[in-house]
């Protein structure tokens, strides 16, 4: 459908038409249901009672009669198609001693010719009452309806309701998001108070969505949630790591095992050729700036700003995926939205919680290298096969160094055990009107490096809620502050895993040993790199209820992140032959933002339907500023941290940007009898990132859902189906991750003054005409619940197409610039299937077992790229393939006579060259991934464990320009034992070569490193997390300890993979310069692999 219909040229208009059509369809249907007298019956000898029931179902009219009258009536045989009510009733009662009268919605059955009995006028009882939660706190906006009727209301701000005209036999239904539905029969009462319990049924649990809340049951969009329990089960430093493997469609890849390192987060694929594909993060309503603030990089690459958010302060994380859920965030929602809500205070006596854990970490995987004797044998073989003689300059390992020394470099460099401790204390409490929570957390982790370094973070979280006594006014405020210090080194030394195993580290006098241009990795440990981050997020929501159902609110937020870096390069870390002076680098970045979002929401009951309308506006400003200095000429290396001691200080960079953003947005949600749901959102955004005439854009979505399990014909036919929902959404979102001011024609300061004067250069070839990348998202999903929702199953299909790509339009360099930013009508499709299953396997008093699993099958495709063949991207992309393909040579094997690697000559020109012989090696995006979580409780014990799996391919350890040629002065992995050794050998490992001019060497150097031989499977299954808790409360209660537990937690326990390299997740690649275009950064093999962590903890409340 979408090919010809709504994806065509004027989608907005089409969407609107579609909306109007759907809206009308619903309204018409509602009317037909309410008043129609189109009755279809086919009954033979049916009881009158059962016929009446069917009429009620079809018309909404209810019958009122004395039981005896109807029970004694004759059986009915009737055949009618679209008959009207009067005719049907007459026909039913024709040979009975009965008559009828219609009073409003009620059909009164009476004896023929009898006067209307007094009870025939249903007593119009007025029922009122108060709805509270388990603690007795009034619940606002609880829907109270009369079952099987159109009557209903909502509770006011004191939790009170009143419904008039309720029959004695009616049943009241109380429902509210986050609570179990409650049904109470009237039984003639006029005061009915209800107490709702928090939903344990996950369908009715609250789900946080943009600017509001809903439940899984009523949601028209796709939202996945991770709650504090899952986050707390994991001893991780940042909240994003805690999401790995838990959310369908969310692929999170760590880039290094060093603390503070960045994560690559992709929600449903890569939507942009050149620009950011990061999701939008919103913490307590405030957009969080997730772009690293680095002025320069250290060993952990760029620092992840999320690392300064304490995961233990987080209450829940909701991941918004489809257009319905995200379009209200408009131009920044193309890559999905991640909403983080922090914890809030609980009503009741103040409770103090303590949570302390401590543990150890080590790298998940190492690679198996050749031993010294195997290595030396390979080296000798390489020289012999080349016909070259080793010399002291070309082969110190064979001629100079100790033949028996056997350094396990991995063990020396990254083989140490890191320690980890985190302690948290919090106090929470409150009364009916005011609640508070204050918590403080301290975390200290060291590294797997051989020296004492590491990461320290202190964080504080304060949350306040206050309501006026009449509950019309409510204010909440929260403040999150953290300060961290990350002490690591300047360069990741994992890359030295392949030094010759017999290379000496020290000279006899204890000084560092140096040979040629080979770095001594131990000397690198003297290059310090320290970062300090201060992060403040403050927000407040002020709400006022003008009349019940109508609220105005304002969301106010402020964030400030300050990031300082110091990197030192002292003399001792240099080879004395090339040392040209000690130096240091100092980086300072600061970014602050504010947001103001006034909103109004209105919720109204229209008969048996519910309409919610939200309108709001948003003003946001970010100011980023930073600079970076390099110093040299210090009086002493001890003073490298002190820039005042530098005799020469040069400002290498100064950056400043102001980003302003403004929007109006609206949403309307229509809910008819909790059966048909329609949701429409709209947002108009203005962003300063575009030229003056291109700043504004419109975005929007429509979502609809049909809870078919509420249809009687379904519930009758499929009694085992406790929940069934079909839903779909379509909409557009945008992406503006292109940086600030790119439209501005300006001059920038040059890096160095000239003759004492500062200079300017043209910053860019300005183009004021470019606009948003747009992403059109289509979603269809089916949600099923079986066996009273003990089994919940979801499947969704999405198809997202991002177009209007902002690319660097290439120019011929003669024009003065290589490119300028412009929109290209290239189109990228990300599509996939997501499956989620949640089951309650056993639920008994002392034993329960639940399982949840998710699976995402993803596909990424470049659909269109006009002019690709002539563009600079001609060799990078292929229409119909993923936008993250990697090209290289097709390895055809090792010549069994010469041992030289051979490759496919695609263009048959008898030479292997990049121009004609590149084939697609593979794709850096995964094919499918997911997780499997089990939770088991038995008496006081609770066990949770999560398996994460990823099916993907990628570069192996020998891929890329930095891979050492087999046979040169560098150790190799143990697979070299299978190398070609003599004519006739059939193997896939070429012969080693040590001489640059040799054919074997050239093949290894020029082709093999970039070929399919070193590209392989990087799939893995990982026991991501295990958490075992034991509740000690019953032992400790006597000590005035309310509750207490001990626990064991572990992260990344083991990995099953056939990956040839370090860690299939990081792929062992230095991603310090990772960009969208350079998925492997500078391709410098080896970063510290992901760590395995084991902790023991204690938790108690006073």
């Amino acid at each position: 459908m979408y090919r010809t219909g709504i994806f065509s040229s004027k989608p907005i208009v089409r969407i609107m038409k579609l909306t109007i059509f759907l809206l009308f369809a619903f309204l018409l249907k509602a009317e037909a249901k309410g008043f129609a007298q189109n009755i279809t019956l086919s009954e033979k000898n049916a009881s009158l009672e059962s016929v009446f029931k069917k009429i009620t179902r079809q018309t909404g009219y209810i019958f009122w009669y004395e039981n005896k009258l109807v029970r004694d009536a004759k059986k009915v045989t009737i055949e009618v198609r679209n008959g009207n009510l009067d005719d049907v009733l007459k026909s039913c009662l024709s040979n009975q001693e009965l008559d009828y009268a219609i009073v409003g919605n009620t059909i009164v059955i009476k004896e023929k010719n009898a006067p209307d009995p007094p009870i025939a006028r249903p007593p119009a009882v007025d029922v009122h009452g108060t709805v509270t939660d388990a603690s007795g706190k009034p619940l606002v906006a609880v829907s109270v309806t009369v079952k099987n009727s159109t009557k209903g209301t909502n509770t006011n701000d004191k939790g009170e309701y009143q419904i008039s005209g309720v029959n004695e036999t009616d049943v009241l239904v109380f429902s509210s998001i986050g609570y179990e539905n409650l049904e109470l029969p009237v039984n003639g009462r006029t005061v009915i108070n209800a107490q709702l319990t928090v939903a344990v049924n996950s369908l009715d649990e609250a789900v946080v969505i943009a600017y509001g809340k809903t439940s899984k049951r009523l949601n028209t969009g796709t939202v996945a949630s991770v709650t504090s329990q899952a986050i707390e089960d994991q001893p991780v430093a940042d909240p994003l790591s805690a999401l790995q493997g838990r959310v369908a469609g969310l692929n999170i890849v760590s880039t290094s095992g060093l603390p503070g390192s960045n994560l690559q987060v992709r929600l449903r694929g890569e939507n942009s050729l050149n620009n950011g594909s990061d999701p939008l993060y919103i913490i307590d309503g405030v957009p969080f700036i997730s772009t690293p603030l680095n002025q320069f990089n250290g060993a952990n690459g760029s620092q992840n700003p999320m690392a300064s958010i304490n995961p233990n302060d987080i209450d829940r994380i909701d991941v918004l995926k489809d257009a319905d859920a995200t379009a209200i965030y408009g131009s920044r929602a193309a890559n999905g939205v991640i909403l983080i809500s922090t914890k809030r205070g609980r009503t009741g006596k103040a409770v103090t919680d303590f949570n302390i854990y401590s543990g150890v970490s080590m790298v998940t995987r190492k690679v198996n290298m050749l031993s010294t004797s195997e290595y030396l044998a390979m080296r000798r073989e390489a020289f012999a096969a080349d016909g070259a003689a080793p010399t002291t300059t070309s082969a110190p390992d064979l001629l100079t160094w100790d033949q028996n020394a056997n350094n396990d470099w991995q063990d020396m460099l990254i083989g140490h055990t890191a320690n980890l401790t985190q302690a948290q204390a919090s106090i929470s409490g409150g009364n009916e009107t005011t609640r508070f929570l204050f918590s403080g957390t301290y975390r200290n982790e060291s590294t797997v490096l051989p020296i004492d370094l590491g990461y320290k973070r202190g964080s504080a979280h304060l949350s306040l809620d206050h309501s006026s006594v009449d509950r019309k006014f409510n204010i909440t405020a929260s403040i999150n502050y953290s300060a961290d210090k990350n002490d690591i080194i300047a360069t990741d030394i994992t890359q030295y895993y392949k030094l010759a195993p017999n290379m000496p580290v020290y000279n006899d006098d204890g000084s560092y040993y140096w040979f040629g241009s080979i770095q001594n990795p131990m000397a690198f440990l003297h290059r310090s790199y320290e970062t300090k981050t201060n992060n403040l997020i403050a927000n407040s929501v002020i709400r006022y209820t003008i009349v019940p159902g109508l609220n105005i609110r304002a969301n106010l937020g402020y964030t400030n992140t300050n990031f300082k870096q110091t990197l030192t390069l002292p003399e001792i870390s240099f080879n004395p032959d090339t040392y040209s002076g000690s130096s240091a680098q100092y980086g300072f970045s600061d970014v602050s933002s504010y947001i103001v979002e006034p909103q109004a929401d209105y919720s109204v009951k229209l008969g048996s339907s519910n309409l919610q309308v939200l309108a709001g506006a948003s003003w946001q400003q970010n100011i980023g500023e930073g600079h970076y200095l390099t110093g040299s000429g210090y009086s002493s290396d001890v003073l490298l941290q002190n820039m005042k001691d530098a005799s020469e200080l040069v400002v290498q960079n100064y950056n400043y940007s102001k980003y302003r953003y403004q929007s109006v947005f609206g949403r309307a949600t229509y809910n008819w009898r909790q059966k048909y749901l329609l949701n429409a959102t709209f947002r108009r955004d203005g962003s300063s990132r575009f030229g003056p005439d291109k700043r504004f854009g419109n975005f929007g979505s429509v979502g609809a859902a049909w809870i078919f399990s509420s249809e009687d014909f379904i519930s009758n036919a499929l009694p085992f189906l406790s929940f069934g929902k079909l839903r779909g959404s379509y909409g557009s979102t945008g992406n503006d991750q292109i940086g600030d001011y790119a439209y501005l024609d300006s001059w920038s300061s040059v890096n160095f003054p000239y003759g004492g004067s500062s200079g300017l250069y043209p910053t860019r070839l300005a183009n004021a005409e470019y606009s948003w990348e747009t992403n059109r998202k289509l979603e269809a999903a089916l949600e099923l619940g079986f066996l009273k929702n003990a089994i919940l199953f979801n499947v969704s299909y999405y198809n997202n197409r991002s177009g209007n790509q902002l690319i660097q339009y290439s120019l011929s360099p003669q024009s003065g610039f290589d490119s300028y930013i412009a929109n290209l009508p290239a189109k990228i499709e990300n599509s996939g299937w997501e499956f989620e299953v949640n089951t309650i396997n056993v639920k008994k008093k002392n034993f329960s077992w639940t399982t949840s699993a998710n699976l995402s099958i993803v596909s990424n495709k470049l659909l269109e790229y006009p002019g690709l063949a002539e563009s600079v991207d001609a060799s990078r992309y292929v229409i119909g393939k993923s936008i993250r393909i990697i090209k290289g040579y097709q390895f055809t094997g090792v010549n069994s006579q010469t041992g030289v690697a051979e490759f496919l000559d695609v263009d048959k020109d008898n030479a292997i060259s990049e121009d004609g012989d590149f084939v697609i090696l593979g794709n850096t995006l995964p094919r499918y991934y997911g997780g499997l979580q089990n939770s088991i409780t038995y008496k006081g014990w609770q066990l949770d464990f999560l398996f994460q799996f990823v099916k993907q391919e990628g570069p192996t350890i020998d891929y890329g320009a930095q891979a050492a040629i087999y046979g040169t002065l560098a150790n190799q992995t143990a697979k070299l034992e299978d190398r070609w050794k003599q004519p006739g050998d059939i193997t896939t490992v070429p012969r080693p070569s040590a001489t640059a001019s040799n054919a074997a060497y050239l093949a290894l150097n020029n082709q093999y490193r970039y070929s399919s031989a070193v590209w392989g499977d990087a799939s893995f299954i990982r026991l991501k997390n295990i958490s075992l808790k034991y509740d000690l409360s019953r032992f400790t209660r006597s000590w005035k300890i309310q509750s207490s537990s001990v626990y064991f937690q572990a992260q990344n326990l083991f990995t099953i993979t056939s990956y040839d390299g370090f860690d299939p997740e990081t792929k062992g690649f230095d991603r310090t310069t990772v960009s969208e275009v350079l998925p492997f950064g500078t391709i410098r093999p080896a970063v510290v692999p992901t760590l395995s962590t084991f902790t023991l903890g204690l938790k108690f409340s006073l």
Partner: protein
Amino acid sequence: MKHTLRYILPLLLLSAIVSCKKYVDVPPPQDQLPAEAAFTTDKTATATMVGLYSNMNGYNYSFANVLASFMPAMSADEFYSAFTSFDAFKLNSLTPDNSYVNTLWSQPYSYIYHVNAIYEGVAASNSLSPAVKSQLLGEARFMRAFFYFYLVNYFGDVPLILDTDARKNSSLPRTPAAQVYESIINDLKEAVDELQDDYQNSERIRPNKAAAKTLLARAYLYTGKWSDAETLAGEVIGDNHYQLLTNLNSVFLKTSQEAIFQIAAVNTVTGAGGMNTWEGFNIVPATPTSRSYYIIFPELMNAFESGDLRKANWTKSYVVGTNTYYCPFKYQNRLISPVVEYTTVLRLAELYLIRAEARAKQNKLDIAIDDLDEIRHRAGLDPLDDNLTQDQVLQAVEQERRVELFSEWGHRWFDLKRTNRADAVLAPMKEALQPSAWQSTDTLYPIPAQARRTNVNLTQNNGYN
């Protein structure tokens, strides 16, 4: 209730929309100067000009420091590098995807955009003082001519781009070399008028009138306008600001009285001790006993007459194993603070050689020899025989240019090409390094592949298809 809704919501939306446009109008960033402000004052307009020189010399392996001097020297018979990445120059086996060739093409063109932007901005400005305006227009024209001079000599016909309409310029085809020279000469004539006699400060790091005359004299020489070349060279030689220095070790100092135009050191932190010139940084051995990675071809070493002070002062020997090699040593400082040397672009000695050649071409042999003798005298060599024939004088000019201007700005490579001597001189020498290394078509560098990929109208030079 309905009324409240009816009034509040539209008001809310309206207020948002009304203030929309203004709110997202951000002021220009503090780290950038909007183009319209750049040419409003003398100071900022001047900053746009010095920004060019700073960018030209900020980083190693740029056109204006290392590449313009090293690459043609390797293509010719001056020196080569121990790094195999430069072998394609040494063996004249360049391919269109050579990254250095790409830089030699794209960098001058990016600088041309920069000077075109200055030219347009300054010409359109009403608020600059006349003196600054004239100087900047002249400087922009001088630099544009300068870049085209090198482009046309590396690549032959090149697109002639004289404005900032980059989208249009991106697809322009190559302009015949003669027309490019016309533009060069036209720009330089204007620059001679517009530039001032004096330098802009105590150093010679921005072009003045004499610099324009020098380059114009060179352009006349290359286009066979002998008498014009002679006249202009004479004007600069007669200018008492400039003199040949008797001490060869002072020629390349930043205080040199022989220098006509130098590019100042800017990136003085790299290497921590303070950089002088990138040429020195690359060539000069790290320690007195260590090696250089640049090696003068024996042909050049043998070209020095015995007793030539230039051999003694401007080359340096070093030993690797049992072999002795020589590297250029005009720039003698690798690191060392404070900065004492500047990259020297134009210097007086060249004008004597231009005038000598122009005079010889016009058969004014006596005074041609006089000019050559000035240079030879400074180098500690005897005067030439007064009775040389025209051919012999021209040969003496070639020889003198070779040993005087070696390793500077591609003089030797251009001389061999413009005098049609490349085949005769380079074929035997390069083929001794590698069989069939030399082709006549090697005198032009290939048009870079990237440039051709992005502009289908660019034809390739012969020999590279």
